[in-house]
């Protein structure tokens, strides 16, 4: 009984503190993710005030947090959007993967880490944070901009790629070697294609099976289905997160719309617990030695993201200012990088990975949204205009053809 009381006090105090932090962050236009991570560092072992009684609770909560993050991501996109987008944006997605995963992998090898760690770090530097970027685009009033569909389609491809990447990483980290990774990949590919086909053909039938009218029943059935499928996926070594993502894709129409609204508060709660947990499991003393490498990696991989955005926007017929806006907007890494790093931490592949990932995400997620505003300043526009005047002969592609 006593331990339950302490648990309530600890969890209550931590959640309240996170709420206050989030509020302060919003005032400065800061995503709450870095604040939750910092709070986790402060409360973790070796931190200011270690949490003891609630550790187990937070661990389970973090697991649910990852699952909810992914099911919401799946709910955001319809299967048709994913497939339709894949056709037109595949080259940009490929460039994105090459430009941003390779620096991470190379960096890990440079540090003398094994190829498993290189695979993990490649994922961490590859994936931009769709949550943070969508928020930044909305805040800056850029949803109507012509480069925004380019940015969004890159994010969609990255998220879809996670459905293949996460199972491979899960398998490799489980110690099955390269062959096991290939097997996991083929299972993932077959599953994802099957789910996409079923969702496009029969998505209506699946969704009509779940009633929208009763919000309570909807919440329980969607949450239950998601956790169940995620659990089964984890049992089959395909990664719980991917199972949840696929459930989100399979649901469509009014069910998806209502489930998004109902699950959002739950996602916010458990995602906060997840970021906190990741911070908790990182020793703050391990951060200072990796700050410099993390900074170097952040600078390199933020530049490669800018190049990706410029390349993709140019292919979309966007003029130079829009190309730069697309590049700068893509920089922040966030929830996915932490999810990937979380997998590595759980398997204990490389002790230096978690602090490096924490520092890396902290740097990119804080500076990324700030740098995204760069293109709105008058002096920045003036520089761009001067450059455009130099290359006027090439000129922007006319909008109408």
């Amino acid at each position: 009984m006593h331990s339950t009381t302490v648990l309530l006090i600890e969890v209550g105090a931590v959640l309240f503190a996170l709420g206050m932090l989030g509020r302060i962050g919003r005032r400065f236009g800061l995503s709450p993710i870095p604040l939750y991570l910092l709070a986790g560092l402060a409360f973790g072992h070796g931190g200011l005030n270690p949490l003891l009684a609630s550790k187990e609770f937070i661990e389970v909560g973090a697991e649910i947090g990852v699952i909810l993050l992914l099911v919401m991501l799946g709910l955001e996109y319809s299967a048709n959007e994913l497939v339709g987008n894949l056709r037109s944006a595949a080259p940009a997605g490929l460039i994105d993967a090459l430009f941003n995963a390779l620096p991470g992998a190379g960096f890990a090898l440079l540090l003398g880490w094994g190829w498993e760690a290189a695979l993990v770090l490649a994922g961490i530097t590859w994936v931009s944070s769709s949550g943070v970027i969508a928020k930044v685009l909305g805040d800056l009033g850029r949803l109507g901009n012509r480069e925004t569909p380019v940015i969004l389609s890159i994010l969609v491809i990255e998220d879809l790629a996670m459905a293949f990447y996460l199972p491979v990483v899960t398998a490799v980290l489980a110690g099955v070697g390269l062959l096991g990774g290939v097997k996991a990949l083929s299972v993932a590919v077959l599953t994802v294609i099957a789910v996409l086909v079923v969702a496009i053909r029969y998505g209506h039938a699946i969704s009509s099976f779940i009633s929208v009218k009763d919000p309570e029943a909807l919440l329980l059935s969607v949450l239950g289905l998601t956790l169940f499928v995620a659990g089964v996926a984890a049992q089959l070594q395909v990664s719980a997160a991917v199972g949840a993502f696929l459930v989100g894709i399979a649901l469509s129409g009014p069910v998806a719309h209502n489930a998004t609204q109902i699950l959002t508060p739950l996602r916010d709660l458990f995602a906060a617990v997840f970021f906190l947990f990741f911070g908790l499991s990182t020793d703050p003393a391990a951060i200072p030695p990796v700050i410099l490498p993390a900074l170097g990696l952040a600078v390199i991989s933020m530049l490669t993201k800018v190049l990706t955005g410029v390349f993709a926007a140019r292919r979309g017929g966007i003029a130079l200012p829009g190309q730069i806006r697309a590049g700068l907007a893509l920089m922040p890494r966030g929830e996915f990088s932490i999810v990937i790093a979380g997998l590595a931490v759980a398997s204990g592949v490389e002790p230096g990975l978690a602090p490096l990932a924490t520092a890396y995400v902290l740097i990119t997620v804080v500076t990324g949204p700030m740098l995204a505003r760069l293109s709105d300043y008058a002096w920045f526009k003036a520089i761009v205009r001067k450059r455009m005047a130099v290359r006027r002969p090439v000129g922007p592609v006319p909008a109408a053809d």
Partner: protein
Amino acid sequence: MSVRRDMHDTSATVGRVRVRVEQTPLPGIGVRHDLITSSGRTVGVVSHRNGRRDLVLYDVEDPDACLASIPLTDDEAEALADVLGASLMLGQLSGLREQAAGLLTEQVALPAGSPFVGRRLGDTRARTRTSASIVAVLRDREVIASPGPAFQFEANDVVVAVGTRDGLDGVTAILAGDTGD
């Protein structure tokens, strides 16, 4: 990636001018429609999946960037659409007047004491008696185009009629109840 390729062009023929409305999907957010006006400006509407709508205006110097993004509630969007629709409708009607010599278009407000408030359009027998046609009724900022004989008048309706001078005067008189029946 080529955004342009996955745009679905919907061409609307309004009047005699072809207007091209481009539709661009915004994965995870909704869809954007935009059109380039003959004055060279681009206006668009971002329709969010959760029902929110933003009216966006594009920069002249940087046509990829939106200068302003104005969120509209359902009521505001409807009001704006009505205002545009009503002015368009009336504009087309006045165009009609120029086309056919001798034919006039007129708006006739239903007088407060009209015997036809609450009665059907067919009861006026306006076309038979004056050979002028009632082509639309304006009610609460809404345009009811080509109302049928079963259409029921309400107080404050404004009737749009097309006909000769005599015919339109006849319609005005009938609606005012000045014809003795």
